[in-house]
């Protein structure tokens, strides 16, 4: 009896300690998520004064929506363009920053700098860089005789411009994780490899890279979710244009909800996005995780 009481007492304490964060979590995370799920099965646009249940109509409609497909493929291309590149770049930069002993701090700061600048400011900087005719990039391209290119106004260029900017913004951030990962690898391992006469490439391929896999995994997931989360730059730079050429899923959700005022559809889109992200994270965690060595 006494044991049970003691156990109960411990549990009560535990719950009490968890209570504050639990309340906030329920109030601001679980409840809205639940509401979103419900709303996604309702018609809730400007044409309906009271939301009413319409089953899976929103989802059906979504599948027939060309813009949705456009935005989704855009986003996948955006992810494909940013994730591997920024992760690889981050790794390269971390290896370099870790090697360059002198001025280590300076190099780190230089690489990390884009990350601490708010996205809105970054967007404004790049808006200037990408401005046709007067922008920095146009000036540079002038030397090659291609000064007349329009980066943000051209459907075929705009996505590349966005991808480039995001890589610039994110690589430094991911580099920090890689630097931390590198610090965790014992110097002895490298010295032992040096005694054997292993080349730099062999050491990277057989020691450094495998031991950094946990970091790579973590960073990849962050990079992937980021590629779906990032919208600030679209608000400033392109508003998803021209003709949805740079529109991404989250910005489309925002437009649907607050420009077209279709709450039901926006909720359905949100659910699709969340499921997509969860699926990718699950594949990465449960599929690849077994092959990774964790300390």
């Amino acid at each position, binding site marked *: 009896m006494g044991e049970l009481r003691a156990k109960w007492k411990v549990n009560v304490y535990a719950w009490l300690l968890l209570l504050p964060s639990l309340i906030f979590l329920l109030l601001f995370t679980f409840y809205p998520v639940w509401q979103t799920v419900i709303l996604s099965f309702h018609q809730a646009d400007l044409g309906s004064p009271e939301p009413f249940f319409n089953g899976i109509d929103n989802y059906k409609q979504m599948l027939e929506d060309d813009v949705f497909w456009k935005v989704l493929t855009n986003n996948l291309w955006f992810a494909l363009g940013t994730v591997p590149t920024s992760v690889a770049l981050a790794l390269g930069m971390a290896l370099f920053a870790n090697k360059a002993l002198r001025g280590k701090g300076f190099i780190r700061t230089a690489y990390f700098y884009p990350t601490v600048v708010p996205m809105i400011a970054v967007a404004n900087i790049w808006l200037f860089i990408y401005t046709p005719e007067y922008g920095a990039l146009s000036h540079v391209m002038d030397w090659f005789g291609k000064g007349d290119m329009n980066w943000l106004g051209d459907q075929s260029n705009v996505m590349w411009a966005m991808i480039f900017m995001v890589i610039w913004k994110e690589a430094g951030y991911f580099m920090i994780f890689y630097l931390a990962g590198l610090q965790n690898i*014992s110097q*002895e*391992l490298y*010295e*032992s*490899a*040096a*005694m*054997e*006469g*292993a080349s730099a490439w*062999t050491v990277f391929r*057989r*020691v450094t890279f*495998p*031991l950094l896999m946990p970091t790579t995994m973590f960073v990849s997931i962050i990079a992937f979710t980021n590629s779906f989360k990032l919208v600030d730059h679209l608000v400033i730079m392109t508003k998803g244009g021209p003709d949805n050429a740079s529109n991404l899923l989250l910005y489309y959700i925002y437009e649907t909800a607050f420009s077209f005022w279709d709450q039901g559809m926006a909720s359905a889109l949100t659910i699709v996005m969340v499921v997509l992200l969860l699926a990718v994270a699950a594949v990465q965690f449960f599929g690849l995780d077994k092959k990774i*060595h964790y*300390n």
Partner: protein
Amino acid sequence: MAEVELRRISKMYERQQVVNEVSAIIAPGEFFVLVGPSGCGKSTTLRMIAGLEEISAGELLIGGKRVNEVPPSGRNISMVFQNYALYPHLTVKDNILFGLQVRKVSKQDQVKRLEHAAEMLGIAALLNRKPKELSGGQRQRVALGRAIVSQHPICLMDEPLSNLDAKLRGHMRTEIRQLQQELGITMIYVTHDQVEAMTMGDRMMVLRDGEVQQVGRPLDVYNHPANLFVAEFTGAPPMNTTQAVWRSNGAQSGVELSDDPSRRFLPLALGFGPQAGIKDGTPVVLGLRPEALQPLEPGAVADESRSLLVSVQGVEILGSETIVEFKLGDKLWKAKWNGQWPCRRGDLVRVGFALEHVSLFDSQSGKNLAITAGREKGEILRCVQ
């Protein structure tokens, strides 16, 4: 030939001199121990031999060739690191074969060497495990396995036993020593533990603040420490010392214990002082090893000059031996006696010692004054089989 020669090797970090003109010739097949307290530059010296650290000044020769500028892999050396440096994501087998794979040794040869090493070390059953699934001793063996398969004639070890518990350490000491003899390799072994140095080495080099204090066979170093530092570094418990003044008045010469309130006088043999050229009134340090101080039967006619009447301060009975502590002046001395001696604090005992066990050191420089007196007769007794 795998002779290693250090010629006045030094290491400077910024302005700080960490290793100062260390010289030694290490013979092929020798087990050479670098020993000294933490921070004295042992690892730095070893790493300079390995090529992991640049040599600031001096020359390193391996097999008669200068190798200062040769990278580690070109020096025919294998190294066992303090934390074993096992690749955590590779199996034991891949860990052992890593070096051979890098050097593109043929597959059959790899297998042969792996089997040989695994059998020698008794780790054949562990080959498919990852390092974190091994105990400390097993990891140690894997690290040794790497050195074995490399078939390099020289092996360096930096405190390889410091991560093991006491019992395993004792076991691995013998095992490493045996391995080295079986393979006939030259071993340069770093440790801060004088017991390891004494028990494993053919010769040992005692370092202090980057300077060589003494090089020699362990028992020679133990019996004839070159200076006070070596004397107090070797032995467990270390050598007892106390300040004294050399007195030489015609017929009798000896030391007066300066820290002793009664300023006891210990006459030492006549031949001792004059040969060492000690002047009357010279401050010296008297040293006696704990095992040199033996109890005298209360009834026995004590030779006053070679004994001390002391009051027991503490007793440690270890079963096979007893360590008795007493104060001499303000110094706490320890005597080590075989067997179990049920002394108690406050007991008065008379301890005697033989003259040849007395060491005298210059109180300024710490140099052993008797070494110069030519006490080279101290041969190591042969073990009777």
